[in-house]
Protein backbone atom coordinates (compact mmCIF):
# COMPACT_ATOMS: atom_id res chain seq x y z
CA UNK A 1 0.00 0.00 0.00
CA UNK A 2 1.49 3.32 -1.02
CA UNK A 3 0.93 6.49 0.98
CA UNK A 4 -1.77 7.78 -1.35
CA UNK A 5 -3.74 4.59 -0.82
CA UNK A 6 -3.04 4.77 2.90
CA UNK A 7 -4.56 8.21 2.95
CA UNK A 8 -7.62 6.86 1.09
CA UNK A 9 -8.06 4.09 3.68
CA UNK A 10 -7.81 6.60 6.51
CA UNK A 11 -10.38 8.84 4.86
CA UNK A 12 -12.71 5.84 4.44
CA UNK A 13 -12.27 4.81 8.09
CA UNK A 14 -12.91 8.31 9.39
CA UNK A 15 -15.90 8.58 7.06
CA UNK A 16 -17.71 5.55 8.49
CA UNK A 17 -17.00 6.38 12.12
CA UNK A 18 -19.41 8.51 14.09
CA UNK A 19 -16.88 9.04 16.83
CA UNK A 20 -13.24 10.12 16.99
CA UNK A 21 -10.71 7.48 15.83
CA UNK A 22 -7.38 7.40 17.62
CA UNK A 23 -4.05 7.27 15.84
CA UNK A 24 -3.44 3.90 17.50
CA UNK A 25 -6.63 2.47 16.00
CA UNK A 26 -5.60 3.71 12.56
CA UNK A 27 -2.13 2.20 12.95
CA UNK A 28 -3.61 -1.12 14.00
CA UNK A 29 -6.05 -1.33 11.08
CA UNK A 30 -3.71 -0.08 8.38
CA UNK A 31 -0.43 -1.51 9.63
CA UNK A 32 1.18 1.86 9.04
CA UNK A 33 3.82 3.48 11.23
CA UNK A 34 3.13 6.44 13.45
CA UNK A 35 5.07 8.65 11.05
CA UNK A 36 3.15 7.43 8.02
CA UNK A 37 -0.21 7.97 9.69
CA UNK A 38 0.86 11.48 10.69
CA UNK A 39 1.87 12.22 7.12
CA UNK A 40 -1.45 10.98 5.72
CA UNK A 41 -3.51 12.86 8.30
CA UNK A 42 -1.60 16.04 7.58
CA UNK A 43 -2.19 15.61 3.86
CA UNK A 44 -5.87 14.87 4.41
CA UNK A 45 -6.24 17.98 6.56
CA UNK A 46 -4.51 20.14 3.94
CA UNK A 47 -6.64 18.88 1.08
CA UNK A 48 -9.83 19.54 3.04
CA UNK A 49 -8.83 23.17 3.24
CA UNK A 50 -9.58 23.63 -0.46
CA UNK A 51 -12.50 25.98 -1.07
CA UNK A 52 -14.61 23.31 -2.77
CA UNK A 53 -14.40 20.95 0.20
CA UNK A 54 -17.27 21.05 2.75
CA UNK A 55 -15.67 18.82 5.35
CA UNK A 56 -12.53 19.12 7.44
CA UNK A 57 -10.35 16.99 9.66
CA UNK A 58 -11.11 17.69 13.32
CA UNK A 59 -8.66 16.80 16.07
CA UNK A 60 -10.99 15.99 18.92
CA UNK A 61 -11.28 14.00 22.17
CA UNK A 62 -7.94 12.29 21.74
CA UNK A 63 -8.63 11.26 18.15
CA UNK A 64 -9.53 12.34 14.65
CA UNK A 65 -12.90 12.76 13.02
CA UNK A 66 -14.31 14.25 9.85
CA UNK A 67 -16.82 17.04 10.40
CA UNK A 68 -18.50 19.73 8.35
CA UNK A 69 -16.98 23.20 8.08
CA UNK A 70 -18.48 25.78 10.47
CA UNK A 71 -19.49 28.20 7.72
CA UNK A 72 -21.97 25.71 6.27
CA UNK A 73 -23.78 24.92 9.54
CA UNK A 74 -26.95 26.78 8.60
CA UNK A 75 -27.37 24.81 5.34
CA UNK A 76 -27.13 21.59 7.35
CA UNK A 77 -29.62 22.80 9.93
CA UNK A 78 -32.02 23.64 7.09
CA UNK A 79 -31.41 20.27 5.53
CA UNK A 80 -31.91 18.06 8.55
CA UNK A 81 -34.70 20.47 9.58
CA UNK A 82 -33.28 20.71 13.02
CA UNK A 83 -32.97 23.94 14.96
CA UNK A 84 -29.46 25.02 15.84
CA UNK A 85 -28.11 22.94 18.72
CA UNK A 86 -29.20 24.08 22.16
CA UNK A 87 -26.47 25.45 24.34
CA UNK A 88 -25.91 24.92 28.05
CA UNK A 89 -27.25 27.50 30.52
CA UNK A 90 -24.74 29.74 32.30
CA UNK A 91 -25.60 27.91 35.51
CA UNK A 92 -24.69 24.55 33.96
CA UNK A 93 -21.49 25.97 32.43
CA UNK A 94 -20.35 27.39 35.78
CA UNK A 95 -21.02 24.08 37.48
CA UNK A 96 -19.13 22.26 34.75
CA UNK A 97 -16.16 24.65 35.00
CA UNK A 98 -15.90 23.93 38.73
CA UNK A 99 -16.10 20.17 38.25
CA UNK A 100 -13.50 20.35 35.49
CA UNK A 101 -10.89 22.00 37.71
CA UNK A 102 -11.80 20.53 41.09
CA UNK A 103 -12.68 16.96 40.19
CA UNK A 104 -13.43 14.71 41.95
CA UNK A 105 -15.82 17.01 43.78
CA UNK A 106 -19.10 16.62 45.71
CA UNK A 107 -22.31 18.54 45.18
CA UNK A 108 -21.97 20.37 48.49
CA UNK A 109 -18.48 21.54 47.54
CA UNK A 110 -19.74 22.93 44.23
CA UNK A 111 -22.62 24.68 46.00
CA UNK A 112 -20.15 26.24 48.40
CA UNK A 113 -18.28 27.81 45.46
CA UNK A 114 -21.29 28.88 43.39
CA UNK A 115 -23.37 30.02 46.36
CA UNK A 116 -26.48 28.40 44.92
CA UNK A 117 -27.99 24.95 44.70
CA UNK A 118 -26.69 22.98 41.76
CA UNK A 119 -28.96 19.93 41.72
CA UNK A 120 -30.61 20.90 38.45
CA UNK A 121 -27.30 21.71 36.72
CA UNK A 122 -25.82 18.39 37.83
CA UNK A 123 -28.82 16.51 36.42
CA UNK A 124 -28.50 18.30 33.09
CA UNK A 125 -24.76 17.63 32.88
CA UNK A 126 -25.19 13.97 33.86
CA UNK A 127 -27.93 13.54 31.29
CA UNK A 128 -25.85 15.16 28.57
CA UNK A 129 -23.07 12.74 29.47
CA UNK A 130 -20.63 15.58 30.21
CA UNK A 131 -20.02 14.50 33.81
CA UNK A 132 -20.32 11.23 35.68
CA UNK A 133 -20.17 9.80 39.16
CA UNK A 134 -16.59 8.80 39.84
CA UNK A 135 -16.90 7.51 43.40
CA UNK A 136 -17.89 8.42 46.94
CA UNK A 137 -16.11 10.76 49.30
CA UNK A 138 -14.96 9.13 52.49
CA UNK A 139 -16.77 11.48 54.86
CA UNK A 140 -20.06 11.27 56.75
CA UNK A 141 -22.91 10.49 54.38
CA UNK A 142 -20.50 9.22 51.70
CA UNK A 143 -21.49 11.89 49.16
CA UNK A 144 -21.13 11.22 45.44
CA UNK A 145 -18.02 12.55 43.72
CA UNK A 146 -18.33 13.93 40.19
CA UNK A 147 -15.84 14.18 37.34
CA UNK A 148 -15.91 15.04 33.63
CA UNK A 149 -16.31 12.40 30.91
CA UNK A 150 -14.63 11.81 27.56
CA UNK A 151 -17.77 13.21 25.91
CA UNK A 152 -16.91 16.48 27.60
CA UNK A 153 -14.00 16.95 25.19
CA UNK A 154 -16.17 15.98 22.24
CA UNK A 155 -18.90 18.40 23.20
CA UNK A 156 -16.54 21.38 23.38
CA UNK A 157 -14.46 20.34 20.38
CA UNK A 158 -11.31 19.86 22.46
CA UNK A 159 -8.54 17.37 21.81
CA UNK A 160 -7.40 17.25 25.43
CA UNK A 161 -7.81 19.17 28.66
CA UNK A 162 -4.36 20.73 28.21
CA UNK A 163 -5.80 22.69 25.33
CA UNK A 164 -8.21 24.42 27.67
CA UNK A 165 -5.59 25.13 30.31
CA UNK A 166 -3.32 26.81 27.77
CA UNK A 167 -6.21 29.03 26.66
CA UNK A 168 -6.54 30.29 30.23
CA UNK A 169 -2.96 31.35 30.77
Amino acid at each position, binding site marked *: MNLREAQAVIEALLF*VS*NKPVTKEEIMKITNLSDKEVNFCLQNLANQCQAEERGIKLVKIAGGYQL*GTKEQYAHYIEDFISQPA*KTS*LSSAALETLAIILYKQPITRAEIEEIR*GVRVEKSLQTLLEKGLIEEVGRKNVIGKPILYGTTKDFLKY*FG*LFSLDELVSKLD
Partner: protein
Amino acid sequence: MGYHVKLEIFEGPFDLLLHLIEKAEVDIYSIPIAQITDQYLDYLERMKKVDLEVTSEFLIMAATLIKLKSAALLPKTEKEDNNGLQDDEDNALKENLIAKLVEYKYFKEIARILKEKEAEASLVYYRPYQEIHKRDVDLSNVLNNITLKQLWDSFKLVMEKSRELKEKEEIKLLKEEITIDQRMNEILNLLIKNKQKKVSFSQLFSLYRTKIQTIITFLALLELIRQNKVSAFQASGFGEIYLSLKLFQPKEDKNK
Protein backbone atom coordinates in the same frame (compact mmCIF):
# COMPACT_ATOMS: atom_id res chain seq x y z
CA MET B 1 -34.34 58.15 36.80
CA GLY B 2 -34.65 55.26 34.43
CA TYR B 3 -36.72 52.34 35.49
CA HIS B 4 -35.45 49.07 34.07
CA VAL B 5 -38.21 46.57 33.62
CA LYS B 6 -35.89 44.02 32.11
CA LEU B 7 -33.42 42.91 34.75
CA GLU B 8 -30.27 41.00 34.12
CA ILE B 9 -30.49 37.48 35.48
CA PHE B 10 -27.70 36.57 37.85
CA GLU B 11 -26.50 33.06 38.52
CA GLY B 12 -26.62 33.52 42.26
CA PRO B 13 -25.51 35.95 44.98
CA PHE B 14 -21.81 35.90 44.04
CA ASP B 15 -22.66 36.68 40.45
CA LEU B 16 -24.75 39.68 41.45
CA LEU B 17 -22.15 40.88 43.94
CA LEU B 18 -19.40 40.58 41.36
CA HIS B 19 -21.48 42.58 38.91
CA LEU B 20 -21.98 45.38 41.45
CA ILE B 21 -18.28 45.44 42.28
CA GLU B 22 -17.33 45.61 38.62
CA LYS B 23 -19.89 48.34 38.03
CA ALA B 24 -18.46 50.34 40.93
CA GLU B 25 -15.02 49.87 39.33
CA VAL B 26 -13.40 48.91 42.57
CA ASP B 27 -10.99 46.15 43.42
CA ILE B 28 -12.54 43.00 44.92
CA TYR B 29 -10.17 43.39 47.87
CA SER B 30 -11.51 46.82 48.83
CA ILE B 31 -15.25 46.56 48.52
CA PRO B 32 -17.15 49.60 49.78
CA ILE B 33 -19.48 47.46 51.89
CA ALA B 34 -22.10 50.09 52.71
CA GLN B 35 -22.55 51.14 49.10
CA ILE B 36 -22.57 47.62 47.71
CA THR B 37 -25.01 46.42 50.37
CA ASP B 38 -27.50 49.14 49.48
CA GLN B 39 -27.20 48.36 45.78
CA TYR B 40 -27.57 44.66 46.47
CA LEU B 41 -30.77 45.16 48.49
CA ASP B 42 -32.04 47.58 45.87
CA TYR B 43 -31.55 44.94 43.22
CA LEU B 44 -33.45 42.33 45.24
CA GLU B 45 -36.25 44.85 45.59
CA ARG B 46 -36.39 45.33 41.82
CA MET B 47 -36.30 41.58 41.26
CA LYS B 48 -39.41 41.28 43.36
CA LYS B 49 -41.12 44.09 41.46
CA VAL B 50 -40.78 42.25 38.19
CA ASP B 51 -41.74 38.97 39.81
CA LEU B 52 -38.35 37.35 39.61
CA GLU B 53 -37.73 34.65 42.11
CA VAL B 54 -35.59 35.87 45.00
CA THR B 55 -34.21 32.59 46.25
CA SER B 56 -32.96 31.95 49.76
CA GLU B 57 -29.33 32.14 48.63
CA PHE B 58 -29.78 35.79 47.69
CA LEU B 59 -31.33 36.51 51.08
CA ILE B 60 -28.58 34.76 53.01
CA MET B 61 -26.03 36.92 51.20
CA ALA B 62 -28.16 39.97 51.98
CA ALA B 63 -28.04 39.07 55.67
CA THR B 64 -24.24 38.66 55.50
CA LEU B 65 -23.84 42.04 53.81
CA ILE B 66 -26.14 43.73 56.31
CA LYS B 67 -24.11 42.27 59.14
CA LEU B 68 -20.90 43.58 57.62
CA LYS B 69 -22.45 46.94 56.94
CA SER B 70 -23.81 47.37 60.46
CA ALA B 71 -20.44 46.31 61.89
CA ALA B 72 -18.75 48.96 59.78
CA LEU B 73 -21.22 51.60 60.97
CA LEU B 74 -20.77 50.87 64.68
CA PRO B 75 -18.58 53.39 66.50
CA LYS B 76 -15.06 52.14 67.00
CA THR B 77 -15.16 52.51 70.81
CA GLU B 78 -18.10 50.16 71.18
CA LYS B 79 -16.30 47.52 69.21
CA GLU B 80 -13.19 47.87 71.33
CA ASP B 81 -15.24 47.24 74.46
CA ASN B 82 -15.40 43.62 73.46
CA ASN B 83 -11.62 43.36 73.31
CA GLY B 84 -11.81 43.56 69.53
CA LEU B 85 -13.44 40.15 69.42
CA GLN B 86 -16.40 41.26 67.35
CA ASP B 87 -14.05 43.14 65.07
CA ASP B 88 -11.99 40.02 64.36
CA GLU B 89 -15.08 38.02 63.60
CA ASP B 90 -16.32 40.62 61.13
CA ASN B 91 -12.93 40.79 59.48
CA ALA B 92 -12.88 37.04 59.08
CA LEU B 93 -16.36 37.19 57.59
CA LYS B 94 -15.28 39.83 55.10
CA GLU B 95 -12.07 38.01 54.19
CA ASN B 96 -13.99 34.80 53.68
CA LEU B 97 -16.47 36.59 51.44
CA ILE B 98 -13.66 38.12 49.37
CA ALA B 99 -11.86 34.77 49.01
CA LYS B 100 -15.07 33.19 47.77
CA LEU B 101 -15.67 36.03 45.32
CA VAL B 102 -12.17 35.66 43.89
CA GLU B 103 -12.62 31.93 43.43
CA TYR B 104 -16.07 32.36 41.93
CA LYS B 105 -14.75 34.95 39.46
CA TYR B 106 -12.11 32.47 38.26
CA PHE B 107 -14.68 29.79 37.49
CA LYS B 108 -16.97 32.28 35.83
CA GLU B 109 -14.10 33.07 33.45
CA ILE B 110 -13.61 29.37 32.65
CA ALA B 111 -17.35 29.07 32.05
CA ARG B 112 -17.07 31.95 29.58
CA ILE B 113 -14.30 30.16 27.66
CA LEU B 114 -16.36 26.97 27.64
CA LYS B 115 -19.29 28.93 26.23
CA GLU B 116 -17.13 30.14 23.33
CA LYS B 117 -15.85 26.65 22.66
CA GLU B 118 -19.39 25.29 22.79
CA ALA B 119 -20.55 27.85 20.23
CA GLU B 120 -17.69 26.93 17.85
CA ALA B 121 -18.14 23.19 18.31
CA SER B 122 -21.90 23.36 17.80
CA LEU B 123 -21.34 24.44 14.19
CA VAL B 124 -19.54 21.24 13.22
CA TYR B 125 -21.71 18.31 12.21
CA TYR B 126 -20.50 14.73 12.20
CA ARG B 127 -21.65 11.61 10.47
CA PRO B 128 -24.91 10.30 11.86
CA TYR B 129 -25.18 7.00 13.62
CA GLN B 130 -25.78 4.26 11.09
CA GLU B 131 -27.37 0.84 11.11
CA ILE B 132 -24.02 -0.58 10.09
CA HIS B 133 -22.84 -0.15 13.68
CA LYS B 134 -25.71 -2.09 15.15
CA ARG B 135 -25.29 -5.21 13.09
CA ASP B 136 -22.51 -6.71 15.16
CA VAL B 137 -23.51 -5.38 18.54
CA ASP B 138 -22.84 -7.90 21.23
CA LEU B 139 -25.10 -7.01 24.13
CA SER B 140 -22.86 -8.74 26.64
CA ASN B 141 -20.33 -6.05 25.86
CA VAL B 142 -22.76 -3.29 26.69
CA LEU B 143 -24.45 -5.00 29.62
CA ASN B 144 -21.27 -6.64 30.88
CA ASN B 145 -22.13 -6.91 34.55
CA ILE B 146 -25.66 -5.65 34.72
CA THR B 147 -28.25 -8.09 36.08
CA LEU B 148 -32.04 -7.92 36.00
CA LYS B 149 -31.96 -7.48 39.78
CA GLN B 150 -29.82 -4.35 39.33
CA LEU B 151 -32.21 -2.95 36.76
CA TRP B 152 -35.13 -3.58 39.11
CA ASP B 153 -33.29 -1.89 41.99
CA SER B 154 -32.41 1.02 39.76
CA PHE B 155 -36.06 1.31 38.73
CA LYS B 156 -37.27 1.33 42.33
CA LEU B 157 -34.65 3.92 43.25
CA VAL B 158 -35.53 6.18 40.36
CA MET B 159 -39.25 6.05 41.15
CA GLU B 160 -38.45 6.86 44.76
CA LYS B 161 -36.27 9.81 43.68
CA SER B 162 -39.05 10.99 41.39
CA ARG B 163 -41.51 11.01 44.27
CA GLU B 164 -39.09 12.91 46.48
CA LEU B 165 -38.43 15.42 43.72
CA LYS B 166 -42.12 16.15 43.37
CA GLU B 167 -42.62 16.48 47.12
CA LYS B 168 -39.70 18.87 47.29
CA GLU B 169 -41.19 21.01 44.56
CA GLU B 170 -44.40 21.28 46.55
CA ILE B 171 -42.54 22.38 49.66
CA LYS B 172 -40.58 24.89 47.62
CA LEU B 173 -43.76 26.51 46.38
CA LEU B 174 -44.97 26.93 49.93
CA LYS B 175 -41.72 28.58 50.94
CA GLU B 176 -41.85 31.11 48.17
CA GLU B 177 -45.35 32.24 49.01
CA ILE B 178 -44.16 34.94 51.35
CA THR B 179 -42.37 38.02 50.03
CA ILE B 180 -40.72 40.69 52.13
CA ASP B 181 -43.60 43.04 51.32
CA GLN B 182 -46.14 40.56 52.56
CA ARG B 183 -44.15 39.92 55.70
CA MET B 184 -43.94 43.67 56.32
CA ASN B 185 -47.72 43.86 56.20
CA GLU B 186 -48.00 40.88 58.52
CA ILE B 187 -45.74 42.51 61.08
CA LEU B 188 -47.69 45.75 60.85
CA ASN B 189 -50.97 43.90 61.32
CA LEU B 190 -49.56 42.07 64.29
CA LEU B 191 -48.60 45.38 65.88
CA ILE B 192 -51.92 47.01 65.04
CA LYS B 193 -53.90 44.17 66.57
CA ASN B 194 -51.79 44.25 69.70
CA LYS B 195 -53.33 46.36 72.46
CA GLN B 196 -50.08 48.04 73.43
CA LYS B 197 -49.04 48.32 69.76
CA LYS B 198 -45.88 46.63 70.89
CA VAL B 199 -44.34 43.18 70.52
CA SER B 200 -41.03 41.74 71.68
CA PHE B 201 -38.29 40.75 69.25
CA SER B 202 -38.11 37.18 70.53
CA GLN B 203 -41.88 36.87 70.41
CA LEU B 204 -41.93 37.95 66.78
CA PHE B 205 -39.21 35.54 65.72
CA SER B 206 -40.65 32.62 67.65
CA LEU B 207 -43.39 32.64 65.01
CA TYR B 208 -40.93 31.58 62.32
CA ARG B 209 -39.05 28.35 62.46
CA THR B 210 -37.09 27.99 59.25
CA LYS B 211 -33.94 29.87 58.30
CA ILE B 212 -35.53 31.41 55.23
CA GLN B 213 -38.59 32.59 57.17
CA THR B 214 -36.35 34.13 59.80
CA ILE B 215 -34.29 35.95 57.19
CA ILE B 216 -37.34 37.29 55.39
CA THR B 217 -38.79 38.49 58.69
CA PHE B 218 -35.54 40.17 59.64
CA LEU B 219 -35.27 41.94 56.28
CA ALA B 220 -38.92 42.99 56.50
CA LEU B 221 -38.31 44.38 59.97
CA LEU B 222 -35.25 46.34 58.85
CA GLU B 223 -37.26 47.82 56.02
CA LEU B 224 -40.10 48.82 58.36
CA ILE B 225 -37.62 50.54 60.66
CA ARG B 226 -36.03 52.30 57.70
CA GLN B 227 -39.43 53.52 56.54
CA ASN B 228 -39.98 54.87 60.02
CA LYS B 229 -43.09 52.77 60.57
CA VAL B 230 -41.73 50.68 63.39
CA SER B 231 -39.25 51.55 66.08
CA ALA B 232 -37.06 49.26 68.11
CA PHE B 233 -36.38 49.91 71.75
CA GLN B 234 -34.07 48.22 74.19
CA ALA B 235 -34.32 49.06 77.90
CA SER B 236 -30.94 47.67 78.90
CA GLY B 237 -27.88 46.12 77.28
CA PHE B 238 -28.61 42.50 76.28
CA GLY B 239 -32.20 43.06 77.39
CA GLU B 240 -35.25 42.25 75.35
CA ILE B 241 -35.83 44.42 72.30
CA TYR B 242 -39.35 45.73 71.84
CA LEU B 243 -40.82 46.71 68.54
CA SER B 244 -43.56 49.28 68.52
CA LEU B 245 -45.75 50.89 65.95
CA LYS B 246 -44.45 54.34 65.16
CA LEU B 247 -46.72 55.59 62.52
CA PHE B 248 -50.03 54.20 61.58
CA GLN B 249 -51.10 54.87 58.04
CA PRO B 250 -54.18 53.17 56.62
CA LYS B 251 -53.38 51.32 53.40
CA GLU B 252 -55.60 53.57 51.31
CA ASP B 253 -53.60 56.65 52.28
CA LYS B 254 -50.33 55.00 51.50
CA ASN B 255 -51.30 54.30 47.95
CA LYS B 256 -52.45 57.81 47.17
